């Protein structure tokens, strides 16, 4: 009797757990996991959308990838964006985070709210807004620069092969700083204030306190933030490219993500698009692993 009751109890517990986990897991598997696996699978086929025409071609897509002249340009641009975004975003984010927490300003709350604001705006709005700032004839930037020059400035920021990729940086950095600033602020606030007090008594300057207390203790968060910027840039920077330059002029702002989008949804070279997706995955994993190694320091436990 008791054991029966117990088994029925075990079963009702089991049933409850399954009923709470299974719907989520099934939908997640179908809409998140399956597309990723299918993407890998597709990269070994030649397929342009029809149902009968899917041919297994082994590594041919990968050979095409290696021979494709646009891939190195896209990779270079991806790393250009990754490199400068990491440097500029982290520089500003750390500076603002330290300034707002260590100087104990009254306006702390105000700045915190304002600086995070660009992060909540849609990338579409940011793209359109900045396209117009860069507009050669009507745009804010050229009109502003013209105030200081004798002849009107008519630089075509997004249309010039040399300037276009640089012009994509300000909107990306502008929109990224707030989030990472908040992360750094949170980890600075977790540092016991006694450490700073002791350092002040010892006569350590603000700069010295920054290099010997703040940076070592926020390092883990710093590392996580850098890796997060790398992943989101490799994965998502193509949206700003799509909205502002469409990879142009002449592929000078091409990035892997947008090349995938073009191959998949404009030229219906679907399996090749999927292969670019695999390349993005591999590049992200390798970069993340390397950064983990390079940025690893001994963590300081408190």
């Amino acid at each position, binding site marked *: 009797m008791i054991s029966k009751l117990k088994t029925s109890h075990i079963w009702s517990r089991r049933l409850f757990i399954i009923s709470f986990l299974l719907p989520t897991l099934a939908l997640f598997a179908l809409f998140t996991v399956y597309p990723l696996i299918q993407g890998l699978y597709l990269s070994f086929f030649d397929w342009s959308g029809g149902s009968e025409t899917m041919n297994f071609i082994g590594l041919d897509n990968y050979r095409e990838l290696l021979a494709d002249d646009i891939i190195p340009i896209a990779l270079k641009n991806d790393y250009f964006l990754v490199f400068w975004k990491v440097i500029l975003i982290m520089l500003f984010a750390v500076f603002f985070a330290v300034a707002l927490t260590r100087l104990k300003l009254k306006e702390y709350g105000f700045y915190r709210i304002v600086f995070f604001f660009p992060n909540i705006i849609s990338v579409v709005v940011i793209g359109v807004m900045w396209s117009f700032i860069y507009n050669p004839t009507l745009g804010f930037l050229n009109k502003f620069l013209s105030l200081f020059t004798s002849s009107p400035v008519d630089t075509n920021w997004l249309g010039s092969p040399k300037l276009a990729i640089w012009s994509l940086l300000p909107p990306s950095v502008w929109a990224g700083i707030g989030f990472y600033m908040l992360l750094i602020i949170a980890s600075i606030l977790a540092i016991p204030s006694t450490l700073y007090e002791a350092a002040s008594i010892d006569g350590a300057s603000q700069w010295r306190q920054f290099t010997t207390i703040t940076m070592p203790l926020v390092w883990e968060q710093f590392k996580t933030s850098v890796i997060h910027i790398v992943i989101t840039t490799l994965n998502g920077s193509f949206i700003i490219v799509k909205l502002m330059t469409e990879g142009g002029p002449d592929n000078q702002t091409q990035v892997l993500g947008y090349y995938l989008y073009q191959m998949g949804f404009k030229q219906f070279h679907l399996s090749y698009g999927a292969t670019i*997706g695999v390349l993005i995955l591999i590049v992200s994993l390798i970069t993340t692993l390397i950064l983990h190694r390079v940025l690893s320091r001994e963590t300081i436990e408190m």
Partner: protein
Amino acid sequence: MNETKAKVPKQLLSRSLIRFLLLLWTVLVLYPVLWTFLTSLKDNVQVMQGKPWDLPTVLRFENYGNVWSRAHFGDYFLNSIIVTAGSIALCLLLGATTAYVLARYNFKGRGVLYFVYVASMMIPTTLGLIPLFFLLSDLHLSNSLFGLILVYSVGTIGILPFAIFFLVGFYKSLPKELEEAATIDGSTYYGIFFRIMLPLSKPGLITVGIMNTLTVWNEYIMATVLINDPEKYTVPVGIAIMQAEMQYRTEWGPLFAGLAISMIPVIIIYMIYQRQITGGLTVGALKG
């Protein structure tokens, strides 16, 4: 004596310099947004001929009516609301149930399951974009708002893993005695969750809901890939289409009114819930 005297003005100087830089960044952040709202009220002549920083000479409020009805932003707005509300509701239901069990029950495979959800946040999901498009069309869900809701709530944009990750932390923080007392009272497992734990986790659900609302409301790439029927465009897709058409007909005021329409709900939500938004983000990120 001399030393300290020299130190104070130097400190004051660096403080002022930092204050100046903070103010400068404030201007750089807020001005483009303010400028968008101002431009949304200008007429075409002023945009083409005037200085971009001039205030509108005539206030063209009709730009908003124009973009709302003639450019169908009213429809896009409604679509965006349907998609956002549906995605958040589904994501919270699926996320909260899974997070609760992961946080409060011991069973085989718990660690693995949690790891799979959390790790999926770190994988570049662009790889899944093309297969996802064909999956939706196989399921006869392309060009449908319901299909978009499914993709948002459980698909590759990652709001479900975030919800699970955040809510597992939240459920773990609730005291164990609550369930024990309820079990003694003879409540069923379902009763405990729906009558006790779910109401208790309201603050966590609000934080996750708000943050995911922003993500979904602003989402562009899935919407533009999966929706080709103009009647089902969301606001971001509508804006991008309108910008692309600017090459043929120039209506700057209405375009900027479109940008403003997209930003207004976000700004309102941010003003009301900024504590949850900034707080939720950092708590979530620090635990990871």
